[in-house]
């Protein structure tokens, strides 16, 4: 029983981080109908930012989160300005292919600059610390990452649903031309949404080096899982992404523990297929 609870807990903590990565993607996807293929690479860059701040300037990942989020916000804005802007309103595949090129560029740029080696940050505040609660072993870095992720998701959800800016975003998502006629600067909304979507993944990537090694391929899998979470949760729905993130995390942990580690992701992708075959628009989609 304790083992099952432990596995579930580990799965959920991981799932919260997946949910945050997915929430960033979900925001971009929901508002602009753009699949950002470089989303996983954003995560990787954020991890490198946090790693190098920790390695060179001895800044703890817990503080680097802010720098990483800001950096990826700028990267998102830059991506929009230089690439996405030209693909809006054209074939829906254009943005996907252009961001695939961007992902290839970013991944190999990091490979070139930082080598393919796994980089591990030692001596962090949270690193390897655990505490016990009612027979469960709770790893501190994962717990902090999970709680932080949940907090950011709630914050983004509130931003979209309870502020004037959020209403403008929703209006733009529904009908760009109509929103434009109502006096909303939709270009600015697009820029900010790409930045905020990037910042979400920046927070996740900023905290991760306190328990995960950094290498150029780290983002690819997270990016794929984020696609799966967003589609499983339902198009553009942040609560859906949260739910799907938790489901994916728990499935991954259960399959990894009770079947075999190699079946982790087979189970996760199988779960996506099972969900969309039953509900073609995702769990909370319509």
């Amino acid at each position, binding site marked *: 029983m304790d083992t099952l609870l432990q596995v579930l807990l580990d799965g959920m903590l991981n799932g919260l981080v997946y949910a945050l990565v997915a929430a960033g993607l979900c925001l971009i996807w929901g508002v602009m109908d753009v*699949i950002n293929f470089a989303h996983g690479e954003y995560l990787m860059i954020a991890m490198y930012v946090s790693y190098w701040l920790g390695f060179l300037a001895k800044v703890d990942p817990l503080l680097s989160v802010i720098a990483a989020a800001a950096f990826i916000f700028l990267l998102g804005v830059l991506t929009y300005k230089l690439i996405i802007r030209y693909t809006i309103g054209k*074939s*829906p595949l254009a943005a996907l292919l252009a961001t695939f*090129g961007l992902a290839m560029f970013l991944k190999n740029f990091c490979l070139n600059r930082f080598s393919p080696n796994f980089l591990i940050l030692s001596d962090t505040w949270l690193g390897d610390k655990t505490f016990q609660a009612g027979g469960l072993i709770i790893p501190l870095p994962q717990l902090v990452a999970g709680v932080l992720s949940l907090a950011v998701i709630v914050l983004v959800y509130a931003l979209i649903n309870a502020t004037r800016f959020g209403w403008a975003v929703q209006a733009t998502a529904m009908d760009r031309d109509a929103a434009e006629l109502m006096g909303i600067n939709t270009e600015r909304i697009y820029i900010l949404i790409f930045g905020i979507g990037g910042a979400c993944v920046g927070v996740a990537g900023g905290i991760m080096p306190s328990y995960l090694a950094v290498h150029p391929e780290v983002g690819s899998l997270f990016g794929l899982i984020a696609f*799966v979470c967003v589609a499983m949760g339902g198009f553009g729905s942040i609560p859906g992404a949260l739910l799907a993130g938790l489901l994916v995390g728990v499935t991954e942990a259960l399959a990894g523990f009770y079947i075999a580690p190699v079946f982790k992701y087979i189970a996760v992708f*199988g779960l996506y297929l099972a969900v969309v075959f039953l509900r073609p*628009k995702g769990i909370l989609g319509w």
Partner: protein
Amino acid sequence: MRRKALDKKDVIWLGFVALLALLPLAPVVAANSFHMHVVILILLFASMSQAWNIIGGYCGQVSFGHSVFFGIGAYGAGMAVVTYGGAPWPGILIGVLLAAAIAVVISYPCFKLSGHYFAIATFAIVEIFNRSFMVWDWVGGAMGLDYPLVKEGLKNLMWYDTKTGYYYCALILFLLIFSVVRWLEGHRFGYYMRAVREGQETAESLGVNSTAVKLAAMALSAALSALCGAFFAQYNLRVDTPMVMSLDMSMKFVLITILGGSGTLVGPLLGAAVLIPLQEYTRAFWGGLGGGVDLIIFGLLIILMVVKQPAGMIGIIGDMHRRFFKHKGIAKGDSADGSP
């Protein structure tokens, strides 16, 4: 509806193929095996992308799952030679049939999904196949299949001394797949596919069974992809999952077709003729510096091409055509946004 056996377009195509058939006689190409290698890859990737074009371009179902079929073809040939120590031909046949069967089975539920849900389902399928094959010992697992040295010739579909044998095989493959698509363009089924792409409901209301059309197009596309996979295995003399059955391989099918011009006969050839030399020569010039300089440049070029002309190279040619023939009143904007 009968049409003339050959129209002007076909004569140009046949002339082009005849030119390709004579290419190994040209000393510039034949004497340099690297140039030969690049030309073989262009033909192979043009054929693969043309196979994808059937379902992705003409029928409008953008699948990122074609490396599954490509991989099954490659494993079919590879296992016939490596695991069972025979000629590749029975393995190729089994691979092609199996790919078509699997395509029908997995596409049937996927076709109920729309837009991005469909695209991501095909990603998920590639990942499931990729990870399963990696741990499946019967198909070689993570080690992959390494070809033994056997006698060269058509029986074993293997050549060592020169690449000319491979070249003619690639040319036959190219001719086969392009002829199939050329034939489809004028055939009733080709019109059904385009009708489904342009509007499934409208097509249905006119009596087209859209599910049957999509499944048939997918099966054909998968079978032809598997054939290309088998050739790739024979050419590479090695089959492993990350190479033949990965998302990167799937992206190549899509990238070449879209950048060339999807839903057109020349698009895949244009795409392959530009992207493959870029990929191979950047690798040859900068790959040696280590650390992916070739892929950095390749990534930037993809971005540049998509941003400049999302309709692909066929769009660029269309623009140039319009610019030069403006005074003759060529119709505007007919193919510039032909993508699905």
